[in-house]
């Protein structure tokens, strides 16, 4: 207690004007238990009072895949050869769903959590982070479904699995999808605290985005300007490379992957910056 005046140690100092880049990672680390608690709560309560419970995590991709097989495979006649169409759509959907999930569930962070944010302080970034983690759980369940069908095809349909070093990139691709969803989500959530206009764009925007990502068609179908357009979408390389790890057909392109990585980092940094700026006073405008 012998500190000198002016050099005293204060645990928390709040100034009306703060430095824009003062970001407290250690504080988030201190609240890591809360992140897990939130994630657990999200998973435990999503399908409460339903009969099928967590099976709903699987029903959604199964039905969507079947629909895609009928509409895009059957009617539009998009060739997915040599990949079996069910595995083609399911692989694309699984990784794409993780992005959608991370993005849409974080895009409304401030609005949805206004009640709790209005009463108690914790680093606000805890909530979107927990969403990405609970999304990871859902992703894992869907991934298991994909693997089960993949193994079924290996045993009964003579599908061969060629192990390539690219297979090891999978965790990185998943991380990127999560980070991209998180970055985009918190940017939107920060921009919509005061003016809600953008939030109306989110739901159908994500749907539209899927059509400019090679989820329902292979990259190899595209040429020229169309190909460039699709490649400009940073999600394209991730979805394509994710599929490439299982079915090494087509070409792996490092440039595309690096482009996506750079984009992800920028989106995430921008998101954190905006989020950090908004979280102080959003209670007054939300």
């Amino acid at each position, binding site marked *: 207690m012998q500190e000198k005046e002016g050099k*005293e140690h*204060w645990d928390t100092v709040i100034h009306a004007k703060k430095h824009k880049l003062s970001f407290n990672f250690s504080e988030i680390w*201190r609240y890591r238990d809360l992140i897990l608690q939130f994630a657990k709560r999200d998973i435990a309560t999503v399908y409460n009072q339903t009969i099928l419970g967590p099976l709903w995590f699987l029903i959604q991709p199964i039905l969507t895949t079947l629909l895609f097989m009928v509409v895009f495979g059957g009617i539009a006649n998009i060739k997915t050869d040599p990949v079996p169409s069910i595995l083609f759509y399911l692989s694309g959907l699984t990784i794409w769903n993780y992005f959608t999930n991370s993005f849409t569930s974080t895009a409304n962070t401030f609005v949805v959590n206004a009640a709790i944010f*209005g009463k*108690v*302080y914790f680093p606000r970034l805890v909530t979107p982070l927990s969403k990405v983690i609970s999304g990871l759980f859902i992703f894992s369940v869907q991934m298991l479904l994909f693997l089960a069908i993949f193994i079924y095809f290996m045993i009964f349909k003579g599908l061969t699995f060629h192990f390539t070093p690219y297979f090891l990139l999978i965790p990185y691709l998943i991380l990127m999808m999560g980070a991209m969803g998180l970055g985009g989500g918190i940017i939107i959530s920060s921009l919509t605290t005061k*003016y809600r206009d953008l939030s109306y764009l989110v739901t159908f925007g994500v749907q539209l985005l899927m059509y400019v990502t090679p989820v329902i068609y292979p990259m190899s179908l595209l040429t020229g300007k169309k190909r460039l357009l699709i490649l400009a979408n940073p999600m394209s390389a991730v979805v394509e490379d994710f599929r490439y790890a299982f079915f090494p057909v087509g070409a792996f392109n490092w440039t595309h992957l690096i482009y996506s990585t750079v984009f992800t980092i920028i989106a995430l940094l921008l998101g954190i910056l905006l989020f950090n700026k908004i979280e102080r006073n959003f209670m007054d405008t939300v």
Partner: protein
Amino acid sequence: MSEIVIKVEDLSKQYRLGQIGTGTLTHDINRWWHKVRGKENPYLKIGEINTHDTKSESKYVWALKDISFDVKKGTSLGIIGKNGAGKSTLLKILSRVTGPTTGAFKVKGRIASLLEVGTGFHPELTGRENIFMNGAILGMTRAEIKKKFDEIVAFSGIERYIETPAKRYSSGMYVRLAFAVAAHLDSEILIADEVLAVGDAEFQKKCLGKMKDVTTEGRTVLFVSHSMPAVRSFCTDAIMLKNGMISMNGKAEDVITKYMSPGNEGDENCKVYTPELTIHNKVKFYSFSVNKPGETSGGSSIPIDSPMELTADLEVIELPPNTRYDITLFFKDDEGQILFVVGSGVHDEDIIKRGRQSIICHIPANLFNSGIFYIDLMIVENRRSALFRENDIVRFVMIDSQLNLGRWMARAPGPLKPFFKWSSTFPVYQ
């Protein structure tokens, strides 16, 4: 013990009135344009002090204006002031729910806030899961909660229901569990806002006791309440806020006395309670007031030798057969001690009928001693179940005019001072 743990420096908070829409965009752009050119925010120069009743010229008001104070370690600081004085805004800023517009504050140690207990309780989760959830929100780690888990459950008194989803809890159980979690926080500074407004009397006592323990452990408490008895029994120091500024800062006893003194802040409108609420679609409760007979809302205090009328203005929306409603009043002294309870249920005939009416309780002269009194009001159905209960709905001040005249030297002890007849008889001894 004299170490300063909270230092607030020129803290201000500005709010914008009205709705957010396209109109606010021009202000935002203007603000941004000033910032780009390196100029000051133009809207900080305007803005008025925060008085609710006067129509303001400006769209910006200062909920807090240049607040500065220090809190020493181990103090329990009461923050008092009438509605809208800025109490809650101050707590919100200190608990970091929102940021200040200008100024700064510094804190030593961890702050936990009980701005409203039960934050983050999820109805689908069990009591056990909610303890962990709520604890984590309040900043405890899993290990800390585990260590205190049994203590928390014991304090809440709901051991039997700990594996039941919270949605099956009664509101009382909900609050008890929530307060139990919050009370076991290990933070150095605790911020509480009207947490005591809930729960039964026994649990309230438990809470106050726990809060007292907290201060004796050398922790610091900031406490906002409208209940002067609670502030008095619990706080060592107090701050009185008025229109977003500090109007007095000192020992709790002195600040409360000033606040309560006739003609001052705390005395305004305290004799009238106007909730205008509908209770279970059965009764609409307009107001309750304490007055001298024939007076509507006169002087702030009542002479002890004057009779009084307590009037409840309410409307019975429906009155099914074999149903009766009654009003029960709990009279309390300024320490919260119940003096006596009266109720319209003492009459055999129904006092409260269908439709809008004024129900009057007649209090004879010469019952109370001089002092400050509180009333809790309960609306009772069929003399059994309470439809509605609200504590401290009105406060009234009794004055001893004889004391004022200087006829007596001191106030007689005790809350009551009934006037009993005395006489003498002289037996005839023959």
